């Protein structure tokens, strides 16, 4: 059975506050889909709506084509992994994983077989008798996944489950999550504020801000072709240089900025006179002179040496510094603090987006 998840103009209000506004998207069966956004952007609200703990104020949630209105979380084909995992501390690992099966009245023998299979899947075989508080953070994580998978949901919902782990473990768990998803072919809907997590794991990402879905696309699209200024600055590092469109042609636009005339791609079809911002990523900036409308000069404020690369902070037109990443090859000379440096970029790597009205 297909288990596409569809949001159709979903709006969710809490009293006068609108948490999610007009969210419309379709998540394919078997997809690893992420909602990415800062805290308070409404992504958890969307997740709770899909899982059934909240009902949309307007619009429809469909799973596998079926309207989910009025169907409680215990009767939806979804399983939710909570941010704090919410494992049952008074039950053993095996009892935790088998809880959903016990609720469904699965006979003990079959339950044990399934739980053992899941313990194998999460590489915790023979540890079913342990107490939850005897497990490490990563193990708890895996138990939570197994507990959710035990009920064979069509859709697995994950609410920032990695946020409590330390960096190393988080990176390891990303790969593990992705591997588990490939093995079980279940739709994963993943909530995170960490763009690294979203980019590495997801097939597609929905970037959210202030209750609105700003862009939906795969990681590369969202990173290289941001649709809005918010997406451009939220996903990855970016240098915004505000200005006014001076001219536009052949899908490119030239901006009049405090740093001179700068050009970039013009996906929004902006025309002369409009207020806009050109975004250039730190790794797209190069030291030295380049083409006329892709070069500017700025004072070096600080240099941060990070081993394999250095960040050069240049005085930008506004308060925020312009960041430039310099690799470690012999050819690149890192400028000194206080120097005025010339910087250029490939105009195809820069993008011009309309300033928010």
């Amino acid at each position, binding site marked *: 059975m297909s288990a596409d998840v569809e949001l159709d103009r979903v709006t969710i209000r809490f009293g006068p506050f609108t948490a999610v506004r007009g969210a419309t998207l379709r998540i394919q069966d078997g997809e690893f889909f992420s909602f990415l956004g800062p805290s308070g952007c409404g992504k958890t609200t969307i997740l709770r709506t899909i*899982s*059934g*703990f909240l009902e949309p104020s307007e619009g429809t949630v469909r799973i596998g084509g079926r309207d989910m209105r009025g169907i*409680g*979380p*215990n*009767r939806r084909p*979804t*399983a*939710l992994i*909570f*941010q*704090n995992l*919410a*494992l*049952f501390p*008074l039950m053993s690992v095996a009892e935790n994983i088998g*809880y*959903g099966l016990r*609720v*469904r009245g699965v006979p003990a023998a079959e339950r044990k077989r399934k739980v053992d299979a899941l313990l194998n899947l999460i590489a915790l075989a023979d540890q079913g008798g342990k107490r939850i508080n005897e497990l490490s953070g990563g193990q708890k994580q895996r138990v939570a996944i197994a*507990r*959710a998978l035990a*009920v064979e949901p069509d859709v697995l919902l994950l609410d920032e489950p990695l946020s409590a782990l330390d960096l190393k473990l988080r990176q390891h768990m990303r790969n593990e999550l992705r591997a588990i998803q490939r093995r079980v072919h279940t739709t994963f809907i993943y909530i995170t504020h960490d763009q690294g997590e979203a980019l590495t794991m997801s097939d597609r990402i929905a970037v959210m801000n202030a209750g609105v879905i700003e862009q939906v696309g795969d990681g590369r699209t969202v990173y290289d072709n941001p649709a809005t200024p918010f997406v451009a600055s939220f996903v990855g590092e970016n240098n915004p240089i505000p200005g006014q469109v001076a001219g536009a042609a052949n899908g490119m636009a030239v901006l009049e900025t405090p740093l001179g005339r700068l050009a970039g791609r013009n996906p929004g079809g902006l025309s002369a006179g409009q207020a806009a911002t050109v975004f250039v990523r730190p790794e797209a900036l190069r030291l030295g002179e380049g083409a006329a409308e892709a070069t500017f000069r700025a004072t070096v404020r600080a240099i941060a040496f990070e081993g394999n690369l250095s960040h050069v902070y240049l005085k930008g037109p506004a308060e925020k510094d312009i960041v430039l990443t310099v690799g470690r090859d012999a050819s690149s000379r890192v400028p000194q603090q206080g120097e005025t440096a010339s910087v250029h970029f490939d105009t195809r790597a820069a993008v011009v987006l309309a300033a928010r009205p």
Partner: protein
Amino acid sequence: MIESLVKGLLIAAPFAVVAVFWIMAVRERRLAGNPGARGFFQHNGVPIGIFLLLAVGFWAVVMIVLPQLYMVDYSFHPKLPPKDYGGPKDHYTLENYHYFIFGSTTERDALNTTHLRAFFLTIVCSIVVTFVNFCICYPLAYYMAQAAPASRVRLLMLLLIVPFWVNEILRAFAFRIIFGTSGILNNVLMALGVVAEPIDFLGLDVGLYTGLSYAYLLMMMFPLYNAIESLDRNQIEAARDLGAPWWHIHLNVVMPHAKPGIASGCTMVFMLSAGALAAPQILGGPSSLWFTPIVYDRFYQAFNWPQGSAYAFILLLTCVLFVMAVMRVFKVSLGEITR
């Protein structure tokens, strides 16, 4: 001889308790293991530490242990006029306990059915009252701890607490007014035509059970509320998300978590009901004979303090043993209850 021994013991006991507390304090410090941990005196400072030891020692010994020990000692003596205390007629005897079972001090007669019946009825009724109380309080406690908005919790708390500012006796009499044969409830029922004749609620002990349940409502409410409140709401949602119906969640997630609170509340309500005096005297029907009024009568009607002591001691011991047994069955430790 024995008298002076007992007196010596009574004088020595407070010092013994203080010494025990002292040893516990030292031990606690040693058990803490890590050198950074501070002992009892470092933690509280010497003056406050000494005050705590003396105050708790005094409270435990003089207010609790000594009076009870006196009662126990009393219960093994015959009833004597004061001038004979310590005289030749004063001796240790089991006659008070004998009387409880056989209704006489000397011969092995038929069983003392009146007292025995009242005793067992008291225990059984207290269990019923505890159960009723739990059934009333659990849903309310759950609602307040997990479901209700904060403002409503405060309002409910207030509504629960304020009635207990009214004197216990007054509350019991108020129930008489409601449940009496010509009381409010009967009037309403008859006016509505539900019953033709007034129902004798007091005679049927409805008044007694209601009064007792109500009297100790808070004793059940607060431990339950505290225990349920500490449960992470996500666990309830997780269980629900995994497909559990509401009763399954309560039985397997909420109640196991709240077990110490349930045990604590039930213990308190049971103990207090079994030892209740005012409510049974005011609300008890003619056929019901609660055990505590009997104990009361031993003291103040029969002027038989040794016998009253024996009766009180029997009740106390039975209740304690019963509670311990129940806790054993439900695998709750004493330490958990006090949490």
